[in-house]
């Protein structure tokens, strides 16, 4: 397993594996050849050594016989015996010299029976004693004799005259020269050395080739030989192994021991095999190279398609669509074919997934993600969102399926008229289009054009639908890539809210959604820090010609953002659930301001707007009633008709409680929504405020005049006072007065103003206003 991880490439692995196996086999063959050959060589050498041992025995015996013959001849020579018997030294010496020269004998000497040595120089006394003992013990002593510490092959012959009077000793030195002649006789180049064991049991040799350190090895070999016989054995001499045979030599006189060591260095034995081994190694190396090259080529043949597949797989990982070309029909070929099929299917699937990711599943139009991508590709451009007005109603009318078809049809229609643009479905009722135009005017014009194209009657599933659209345009660079679509959507909403066909995104109206939540926490903070103030818009009683009330309107002067429009933060407070705190503060502040007004001499009914979300809130109702009752304040709560209708039961109960607690109830913005008469019937309201849309369009002969007049009558019939909002001109005020309207509110009467301003104007307000009103009339 580990070896698998060690190789990054299959071809390397295969090559190494094959080459390794072959190398192993080759090594085994070479090893066995080497062993067989070296064993054979060793056996040959051993055989040769054994044979040479026998040759040596014969040579030894032959030389001994030669010496013995010569010695015997001399010992029997009558004249010599005469000379010896008469101890004629000069004659003896000359005779011995003569023989030495003639027979080429290293040493020739005699010893008399009484131990006298003649004709020998250099013998030490101990040796002379040993010699005498040996001669005396044996008639024809022979063997290795030490003379002057050097070994000799010696024979003796007794000199009889006729009784024993002495011995002739002939000795040939076992010196290298002598042994070399013996070596020369061998078929193989032997090295011969003589070892002798002195009486002190130490083996010695006169052969300089034997280092003193090797003697112990030789001694062990001699010991083994004495036990196991003289079979050739291995011995290390001079650091090199040799095969050696030990021939035990007879010692002159039998005392001590001598051996002949015949050895043959193993290196020499193997030298003849070097060419064979060298050729095996060379053949092995050549074969190895061929195997490596062959394995590599084969492995490459196998692995190339695999490598191609490997590359293709990596390419697939990177999202490319690779195609592997493999000609073979084997497993790898089939694998490659399967891979190609798989790669194709993956690509198809990816396309489908991509399509799904970028298209709306209902309509098949590009989806928000596709639009985002187009926006990112068009940094200098605009996005227009086209929202179908009253989509909910249309969907309820024609059904979900047809409603979707409607959106689809609009998308296709837009695409057909502007094929170059990216058109997608942004939300259920909204189509968004990325406009690649640089300036705002062109964007607005193009948007208007598209809107114009799409608006009107369109047939879906056999049903004709009248479609109205609001277009919201956002500048991509200003909004940023991420927010452009949202801004366009908001702009469309802004267009709808302001009843415009096309609206450019208005950041001021929108505020900053990213900081909505922080804005709310800042609002709470602002309440505590007194950043929020109440402005009061006076309400003018047309019957008494006096300002009898004021509507409290909250203002927020943010320390860094400046004045924040109430539309922004009040709506946001409603959305985020902070309206209760805001309304509570407003109520407390209004009550306090009412007391200040009272102290200033003006007893005024203060109107406070109550959010629809709080009408149904029992806890808040409790709190508000508590605040009002505790202070005895005179408060009118202005409720928008639609807000009250959202939770009718709870709202009615709470309204009843307010009424019971003496709080006045006003229905705000009456007529703007879908006004309900049953609502009017059920709410115990004291006041009905006519929406300013009626008032501003009021003319003497207009339909609005009729509506206002009948509404005034309606309110009066139900026991409610009627207040007109948005009174901005004197003719309108005159008309309203004529119609019997009770109270007027608007810029003509007075803009919302701080409490201080209100108090300042009050003592003179009524006459001044009256004057101005009168003059206006």
């Amino acid at each position, binding site marked *: 397993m580990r070896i698998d991880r060690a190789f990054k490439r299959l071809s390397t692995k295969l090559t190494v594996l094959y080459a390794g196996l072959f190398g192993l086999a080759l090594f085994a063959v070479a090893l066995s050849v080497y062993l067989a050959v070296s064993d054979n060589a060793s056996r040959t050498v051993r055989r040769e050594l054994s044979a040479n041992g026998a040759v040596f025995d014969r040579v030894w015996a032959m030389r001994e016989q030669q010496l013995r013959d010569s010695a015997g001849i001399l010992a029997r020579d*009558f004249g010599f015996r005469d000379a*010896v*018997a*008469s101890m004629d030294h000069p004659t003896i010496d000359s005779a011995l010299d003569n023989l030495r020269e003639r027979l080429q004998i290293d040493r020739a000497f005699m010893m008399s029976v009484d131990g006298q040595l003649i004709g020998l120089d250099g013998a030490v006394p101990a040796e002379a004693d040993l010699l005498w003992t040996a001669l005396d013990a044996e008639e024809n002593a022979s063997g290795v004799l030490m003379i002057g510490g050097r070994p000799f092959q010696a024979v003796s012959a007794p000199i*009889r*005259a*006729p*009784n*024993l*009077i002495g011995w002739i000793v002939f000795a040939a030195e076992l010196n290298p020269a002598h042994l070399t002649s013996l070596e020369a006789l061998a078929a193989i180049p032997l090295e011969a050395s003589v070892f002798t064991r002195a009486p002190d049991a130490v083996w010695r040799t006169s052969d300089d080739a034997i280092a003193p350190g090797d003697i112990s090895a030789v001694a062990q070999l001699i010991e083994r030989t004495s036990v196991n016989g003289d079979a050739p054995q291995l011995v290390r001499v001079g650091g090199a192994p040799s095969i050696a045979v030990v021939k035990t030599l007879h010692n002159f006189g039998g005392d001590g021991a001598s051996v002949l060591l015949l050895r043959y260095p193993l290196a020499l034995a193997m030298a003849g095999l070097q060419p064979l081994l060298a050729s095996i190694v060379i053949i092995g190396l050549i074969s190895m190279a061929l195997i490596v090259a062959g394995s590599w080529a084969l492995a490459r043949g196998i692995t190339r398609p695999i490598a191609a597949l490997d590359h293709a797989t990596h390419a697939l990982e990177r999202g490319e669509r690779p195609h592997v070309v493999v000609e073979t029909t084997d497993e790898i070929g089939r694998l490659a074919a399967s891979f190609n099929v798989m790669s194709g299917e993956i690509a198809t699937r990816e396309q489908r997934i991509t399509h799904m990711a970028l298209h709306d599943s209902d309509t098949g139009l590009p989806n928000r993600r596709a639009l985002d991508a187009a926006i990112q590709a068009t940094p200098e451009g605009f996005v227009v969102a086209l929202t179908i007005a009253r989509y909910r109603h249309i969907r309820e009318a024609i059904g979900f399926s047809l409603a979707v078809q409607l959106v689809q049809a609009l998308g296709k229609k837009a695409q057909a008229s502007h094929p170059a643009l990216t058109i997608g479905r942004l939300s259920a009722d909204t189509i968004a289009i990325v406009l690649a135009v640089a300036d705002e005017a062109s964007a607005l014009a193009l948007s208007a054009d598209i809107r114009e194209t799409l608006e009107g009657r369109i047939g879906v599933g056999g049903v004709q639908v009248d479609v109205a659209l609001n277009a919201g345009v956002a500048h991509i660079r200003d909004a940023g890539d991420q927010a452009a679509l949202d801004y366009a959507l908001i702009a469309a909403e802004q267009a709808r809210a302001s009843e415009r066909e096309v609206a450019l995104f208005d950041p001021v109206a929108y505020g900053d959604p990213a900081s909505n939540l922080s804005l709310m926490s800042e609002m709470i903070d602002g309440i505590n820090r007194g950043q929020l103030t109440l402005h009061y818009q006076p309400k003018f009683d047309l019957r008494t010609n006096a300002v009898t009330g004021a509507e409290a309107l909250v203002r927020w002067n943010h320390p860094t953002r400046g004045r924040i429009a109430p539309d922004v933060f009040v709506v946001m407070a409603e959305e985020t659930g902070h309206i209760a705190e805001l309304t509570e503060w407003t109520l407390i502040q209004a009550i306090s301001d009412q007391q200040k007004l009272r102290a200033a001499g003006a007893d005024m009914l203060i109107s406070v707007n109550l959010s629809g979300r709080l009408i149904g809130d029992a806890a808040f109702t409790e709190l508000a009633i508590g605040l009002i009752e505790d202070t005895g304040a005179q408060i009118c709560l202005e409720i928008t008709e639609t807000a009250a209708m959202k939770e009718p039961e709870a709202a009615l109960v709470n309204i009843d409680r307010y009424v019971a607690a003496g709080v006045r109830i006003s229905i705000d913005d009456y007529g703007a929504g879908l006004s309900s008469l049953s609502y009017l019937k059920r709410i115990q309201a004291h006041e009905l405020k006519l929406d300013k849309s009626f008032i501003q369009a009021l003319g003497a002969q207009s339909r609005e005049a009729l509506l206002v007049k009948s509404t005034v009558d309606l309110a009066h019939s139900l026991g409610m006072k009627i207040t007109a909002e948005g009174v901005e001109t004197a003719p309108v005020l005159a008309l309203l007065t004529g119609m019997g309207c009770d109270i007027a509110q608007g810029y003509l009467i007075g803009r919302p103003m701080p409490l201080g301003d209100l108090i300042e104007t009050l003592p003179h307000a009524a006459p001044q206003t009256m004057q101005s009103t009168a003059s206006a009339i």
Partner: protein
Amino acid sequence: MRAFLSFAVAALMAGNAFAADLTVRVTDASGAPVENAVITFTPAAGVTTPIRFSWPYQVAQQNLQFDPYILIVPVGATVRFPNLDRVRHHVYSFSEGARFELELFGRDESRSHRFTQAGVAAVGCNIHDQMQAYIVIVDTPYVGRTAATGAVVIAGAIGQGTLRVWHPNLRARGGAMTRVVTLPASGAAQEAFSVQLRAGGHAH
């Protein structure tokens, strides 16, 4: 012959005839009796009378052997060397004081040599190495050769003197051992010698 010797000794010695017999036993290192050892007793006082032995003073050569192997003769005796073989012999001796050489002589020829000095003459034949004989030339009448029992009786030897054992193979300087002894004037005396012999001695 022995009776004569005994008689002669008895005649020489006044008083107790047959009384002063010296028996000498010679054994080797292993205790075996040694034959052919020649025992001589030389009185310290010396010998004045002429010495004669009853056996013939000759060493014959017969069947390529000398006969006898050991011949005891007095100083001044002439020993004959008759050749009874069909081959010729070359008899010699290199022994100190007894050197002679009787060059090749044939059958039924006889040569002789006079030995004038006490000692041992090792006699050989230059042609036939195996032929050996010893002529022991003595200057005392008290002499004997051990028999196969290793013992010899020497009659008439009394008083102080040197007892000497010689054997051809005796391992000692000069091939002899000596011992100074005082022999009783009457009665039997016993002496024993233990000697070391060199191996490979004569077949006799």
